[in-house]
């Protein structure tokens, strides 16, 4: 599938802002089943030349700085991305979760896994508690292949949690959304990460998009109107395998990967600071438009 993704963020300020600075993670990344054909970011009014850098996890970051007075700022990212179906995984063939854990913790005599190491431990937004641990061990039973257990966990979260926009915020901790059993994609992902990491299983937070308009005859996936989030679990045989607990699917042709990190804070698509703005209003619009089906 070939997509064009448009992601527009607009800030409106009550007072004229004297200065603002923005950290953008709006450039999709290449993966095994995704190729970025082109990607650009436009900001109005004009800002100073942007700084571009890669973060530790390989995501592209842009830093935009606005030093003139302004009462509105619009950031538009437009990318064309080619997406292919991921290879099929046989979850039951993966390694038992305890073995994965021992390997990433550096126990036993297994080779270290530096690329998975940052994603093993609870982060600021993926801390667990006793209830989350109890919930987790119901799927991560002794000797269970990790990927099979993760797929089950993903399905349970989808089943047990209510998708309810507005019930949580960007800084809602999974302990709270877990207790309330509701939230949006970000909360679903954080809860699943909290479950996995409370057992020291390596898993990362993936931010991205869903195609907005479903193929004919199919239901519209939830979370399509804004940027989306899901989880990726590391297995020694299959490497990173994605799970979308919001929709209980393994992300495929409909998912476009933007960035990944330990939690939302590492990959928040647009964040920043402002001087003298008074109160702020924020609006975000995401369009994911299929351009054509690329024959395999």
């Amino acid at each position, binding site marked *: 599938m070939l997509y064009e993704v448009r992601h527009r*963020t607009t*800030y409106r300020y009550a007072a004229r802002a*004297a*200065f*603002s*600075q*923005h*950290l953008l993670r709006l450039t999709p990344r290449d993966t095994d089943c995704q190729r970025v054909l082109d990607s650009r970011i436009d900001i109005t009014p004009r800002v*100073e030349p942007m*700084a571009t850098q890669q*973060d*530790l*996890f390989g995501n592209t970051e842009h*830093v935009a*700085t606005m*030093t003139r007075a302004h009462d509105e700022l619009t950031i538009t990212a437009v990318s064309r991305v080619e997406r292919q179906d991921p290879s099929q995984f046989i979850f039951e063939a993966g390694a038992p979760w305890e073995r994965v854990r021992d390997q*990433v*913790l*550096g126990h036993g005599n297994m*080779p*270290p896994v*530096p690329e998975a*190491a*940052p994603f*093993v*431990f*609870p*982060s*600021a*937004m993926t*801390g*667990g*508690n006793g209830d989350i*641990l109890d919930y987790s061990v119901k799927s991560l039973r002794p000797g269970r292949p990790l990927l099979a257990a993760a797929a089950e966990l993903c399905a349970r979260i989808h089943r047990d949690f209510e998708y309810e926009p507005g019930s*949580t*915020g*960007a*800084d*809602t*901790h999974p*302990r709270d959304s877990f207790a309330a059993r509701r939230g949006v994609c970000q909360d679903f992902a954080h809860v699943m990460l909290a479950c996995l990491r*409370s057992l020291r299983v390596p898993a990362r937070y993936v931010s991205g998009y869903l195609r907005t308009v479903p193929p004919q005859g199919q239901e519209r996936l939830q979370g399509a109107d*804004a*940027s989306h989030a899901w989880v990726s679990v590391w297995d020694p045989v299959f490497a990173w395998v994605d799970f979308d607990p919001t929709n209980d699917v393994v992300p495929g042709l409909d998912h476009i990967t933007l960035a990944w*990190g*330990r939690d939302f*804070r590492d990959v*928040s*698509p*647009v*964040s*920043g*600071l*402002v*001087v*003298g*703005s008074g109160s*702020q209003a*924020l609006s*975000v619009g995401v369009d994911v438009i299929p351009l054509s089906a690329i024959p395999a």
Partner: protein
Amino acid sequence: MASPGAATAEESRLVPRPRPGVFNEALGPDGATRPHWRGFLDWLAALGTEGRAATARDLERSRAESGIAFSAREHADAAADPLPVILSAQDWAALEAGVIQRARLAEAVLADLYGPNRLLAEGVLPPGMVYGTDAFAAHCAGWQSPPQRYLYVYEADVARTAEGEWICLADRLDTPLGDGWLIANRIASSQCFAQPFLDLGIRRVASHYARFQELLDSLTGWEGRLGLLTRGEGDPRFFSHAYLARYLNAALVEPGDVTVREGAAFVKTLDGLKKIDVLLRGAPDRAVDALHRQAEALPGAPALSLAARSGALVIGNAIGVSVMAHRALAPYAHLLTERLLGEDLKMPDAPCLWMGEDAARETVLADRTPWSVEPLNRRAMVADRTHLADDAALAAALARRPERYVALRIPRLADTPVLRGRQLASAPWMMRVFACWIGDGWSVAPAGVAAEIAQDPDPAAGGGGRVPALGFGKDVWVIGDREDAPSGPSVSLLADRLATGHLRRTGRDLLSRVADEVFWLGRNAERAEATLRLLDVCLRRYLSGNRIDADPVLLVDLVSLRVADRADLSPAQRFRDAVSRLVNDEAEPFGLPAILAALSAGALRARLSISEEGWRYIDRLSSDRRWGEGLDLRRSADLMRLLEESIRNLAAFSGAAQDNLTRNFAWRFLEMGRRIERGKEIARLARRLAGEEYEDEESRLRAWLTLSDSTSAYRNRYMMVPRVAAVLDLLVLDETNPRALAYQLVQLEAVLADLPRDGPYRRAEHRLALSLVTELRMLDADAMAETTDTGTRARLVRLMRRCESDLAEIADRIARSYFAHAEVPVALAHAGRSAEPEDKADDPGA
């Protein structure tokens, strides 16, 4: 000095015999004085009991005056022990080598973790040591061009074991910069122990800091700027930051003073943004990047890592060093030293187990007694240990987040002499040492600050105790190595730099925030004076019993100049109530509690810009305990005395500001704040006391003259009872009377004329002041005193109202013109979501 033979008898009585099996700094195992302590103990013995007590008092006073005690006021429980710890040249050499090796080790580990990451890839360090806590700064890892160095300053807590070996208790990498304490403490102790200090040839610290200064100069270049980043006066280290900034000639900046744009860091000054090249970091690394660690960033923090990443800013120490701070090196120090430096570890750590290892965790849970469980790499002083308080909570915390903790056991430590009342005793001790990178290696300040550690004297207890967070006060003396070449003439760094004219004149570099603070200090000092004088006048009249002056209605009228009147009470009650509220009610905007609190906070924040003497007057005034005693009319004599003293202190502050402040920008903003506030007050008084023809006009005018401290000026000039026109002339129009409105306006205009402006024209605030000055000059007193048919002085009232509102407008415009930079950034809402309250710190015990 006494001869060695005679001294021994004295000493043996002075210091009790060493505890068996415990190394004693001053005494050998046989009880004989070690050679490098002999001179000092002889001197102490010769002082006698009284002399020793007097010296201890001197030292305490000297420390208090330097301000060390101030910063520790709320943090240290007791006065520090006065006796220095004396180390021989050989002792020091071993310690110094160990400290330098650890600094090199920490640097090598950091360079690997944030660079090629071999330690993890090769399985030398377990991932949990690095990623298990939130100290690792992911946004500073994997840079294409990493910083040249991570560490420029290194501090360590070290101790000597009962067996006499040096061990390390903690590596302090994140916000070291405790050097200010070291230097200030050294100055105090070398003055009070001047004779032995000089006779023994104790090594000085000035040349160590001179070398650090040279390095900093080479990093900033001739034109560059050096800053020291502090969280501000709320930080217990603020004293040290301020002291060190002054010593190194660095600008003391807070996070909100810095902005990052175009890949470089700038400080916000009155003259616009100025590039800053080197920043010594006294604020925690997790709190200084508002873009990448928004949730943890201090208010106003810039995106500091961007400037470091582009190479335009050197941060010492780099962001991210806290991952190896505190105890994080300890569990793997031996292994890492061999691996990274190819050497044997010279100074081992106190026994330390990382709880991320199952076996270690089980050891500690099985027998917790000897172990102290602490966060792996959080500074001990900020760590909240409540969730480790009981065994169940500890077990839960260790089960959920084992990677975050270590168990530390402080072994039995060596003793050093301490003064206990009139007696000398021995007690276990530890010290903090300070090292700086000097370009081609590390230099360790040949000194330290030491503290006693409370340990169970029973050898079976095996040591224990806890490193104090603050309250280090024992100086550590290192005997100079006579074989060594003398380290040059003993010059103080400050004196040297003054002599060579190296000090940059800070003039226009005044930070916008500081200008703002000084401006408000001037305003608040004036507000305090107005309220104090009003209370003073009212109380005198009340106590005089004079029928006219003490008329309750008039008194209420007077006191309601500063406080809202409560009409529901009788006049006498109203007066008592108003006085009590002015003295005691924190909610009264012009009441003393609010003004004095603002004054005290402002003076503290602006302390570096006003003279030390000036600061002390304000401190004395606002921290007087009697304010909290609920004084009111029932204890009028006590209240009168306090008012008088306070007015005197304020006058002394003004005098100190006039005499001791160079007429730089700080002085100008203080002056403007003061003139604006006093001008507004005079205008208000004129309106309220002479705005109409009152029956008791004479009494009112006398009150005004007294409030303005101009009674004798009036008498000298007019030798008669007050008349309106004459009083208006003296207190409104007279440009030579420092208490007159015209004087305030003329002074204000003069200062405004000297401030920088953007173009050829006068700024709006300057024009406003000029127009007020001109307006007053066109008037005469008789015209102002004219009344209308209804008995009001409409012209006076109108003019005074205009003065009040124009002065307020000038204050606003000054703020907009000069302090606008001081405004700090706030976080933007996250994409797609409405901003929600902050996430609580992740507490594993919760």
